[in-house]
């Protein structure tokens, strides 16, 4: 039996900003809606939470964070804060899918009826959604991706999911009308929570799934570049 790991989690991938701390027994979270103020809130929330549990960043075992998908700027703020903390305190990272964290949060909700299968979907703008379908058999197990995280038009998601057995839905992606055809119960106003990221992170940590800070980048999913490259008039440059 190994000692329980001390893990800090941070998520700034959406309009919300949340931090959580877990040492296996204690689990604390701070969650705020912080649209456009992540840089102002992330570190103060980290400092407050660590001070509340009487820990310093240098005493942690790892840092978990919402690696994406989500708002590009939000993901980079989270990644930047985590890079600074992890590099500074020489800690490994536990990147966690924001969609997986949302599915986990819904599956093991205290207030809603249980749901083992959850489709997390986030508005990706430009008429597309980020989505992933997760199986969450029990809270002590990392959810399994039935359909791994991707970005598509809502209609394409519906056609890929039409043969799947029942699931519930969470996230801003569910505001797109085509998803209604899936006939699932859903809640649009759901954000990734650091408390779910810290739980999943702790299981990843126990399974040896940490990564060196230099190896981790945000998961944007949308990588194709929509900016037009220059059309050259002259093929060769005058030198």
């Amino acid at each position: 039996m190994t000692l329980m790991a001390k893990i800090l989690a941070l998520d700034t991938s959406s309009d919300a900003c949340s931090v959580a701390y877990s040492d296996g027994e204690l689990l604390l979270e701070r969650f705020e809606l912080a649209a456009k103020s992540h840089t102002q809130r992330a570190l103060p929330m980290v400092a407050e939470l660590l001070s509340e549990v009487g820990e310093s960043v240098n005493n942690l075992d790892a840092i978990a964070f919402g690696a994406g998908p989500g708002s590009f700027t939000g993901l980079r703020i989270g990644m930047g804060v985590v890079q600074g903390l992890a590099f500074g305190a020489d800690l490994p990272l536990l990147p966690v899918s924001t969609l997986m964290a949302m599915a986990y949060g819904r599956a093991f909700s205290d207030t809603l009826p249980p749901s083992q299968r959850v489709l997390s979907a986030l508005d990706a703008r430009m008429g597309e959604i980020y989505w992933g379908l997760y199986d969450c058999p029990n809270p002590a197990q990392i959810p399994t991706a039935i359909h791994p995280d991707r970005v598509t038009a809502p209609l394409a998601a519906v056609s890929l999911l039409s043969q799947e057995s029942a699931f519930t839905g969470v996230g801003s992606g569910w505001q797109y009308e085509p998803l209604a055809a899936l006939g699932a119960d859903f809640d649009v106003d759901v954000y990734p929570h650091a408390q779910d990221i810290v739980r999943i992170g702790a299981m990843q940590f126990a399974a040896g799934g940490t990564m060196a800070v230099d190896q981790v980048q945000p998961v944007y999913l949308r990588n194709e570049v929509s900016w037009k490259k220059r059309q050259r008039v002259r093929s060769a440059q005058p030198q």
Partner: protein
Amino acid sequence: MLVLGIETSCDETGLAVYHTERGLLAHALYSQVAVHAEYGGVVPELASRDHVRKILPLIREVLSEAHCSAADIDGIAYTAGPGLVGALMVGASVGRALAFAWDVPAVGVHHMEGHLLAPMLEDTPPEFPFVALLVSGGHTQLVKVEGIGRYQLLGESLDDAAGEAFDKAAKMLDLDYPGGPHIARLAERGTPGRFTFPRPMVDRPGLDFSFSGLKTYTLNTVAEHAEADGLPDEQTSADIARAFEEAVVSTLVIKCRRALEATGLKRLIIAGGVSANTRLRAELESALGKIGAEVFYARHEFCTDNGAMIAYAGAQRLAAGQSESLAVNVRPRWPLDTLPALDAQP
């Protein structure tokens, strides 16, 4: 005091380690120019993504080059503005969080203050007070500098920045981004006097600039001489580049001389990307020599964006006791003359 400096305001990731007594110990730069050249300008999303990839390897590199460990660093300086908001957030988030983990103070530095103080990294730094000409892709300003944080704006561009004008002229001639060095290289082969472009606003009193009329004039000249592919022949392109560069340089020189005369000062520093322009340096030295004034500038690599200038400027402010709270603020627009003055002068 040993300070780590981080610059990510645009398309270069710059890191440096500066010691207030021992000077600059290390600096490293990753330039994204090749990434953005394909697009003819900086693509903010690509710039931000690249900063995230490059910042930690560069921090490791400068710490190792400076032969220091984390425990030796006494403070962190990061560029807090002006610049691209997404790019600024990367350096600011990493810098502030790193300072928190290391339990040292952090300070957000004004990018143009960094440029303005870059000549201080040279062996013969200018003494205060002086006039500074800040010329880059985003700025064209004349500033009276009496000390760190004691800045009085004397004049600025009412439209395009000088560096931006270079970029646009380069695009008209199908040259790569950033335009300054490409225009300068082409201009060397240009025939002096074939074209004479207007010197904007030199006939008016005051120290403001305007480059949009010159841009239009250049565009019209290019169109007038265009051949089947839409461009003038190579010699005519070179002649246009020459006339354009001469017009920008001579406008800047006239205003600098005027600023020195208006303030009664005898020292001018030039800073920012355009201050690397050879013709500008030569003509300023010649013109200001005649009125007994001196010109100072940074080495070429510190004219464009770099971490050394941020580490230097931040070190001055940290040494004077300034620091930021854990709430990180970046300021995409940030007037230089709103900075707090330092009482203690270096």
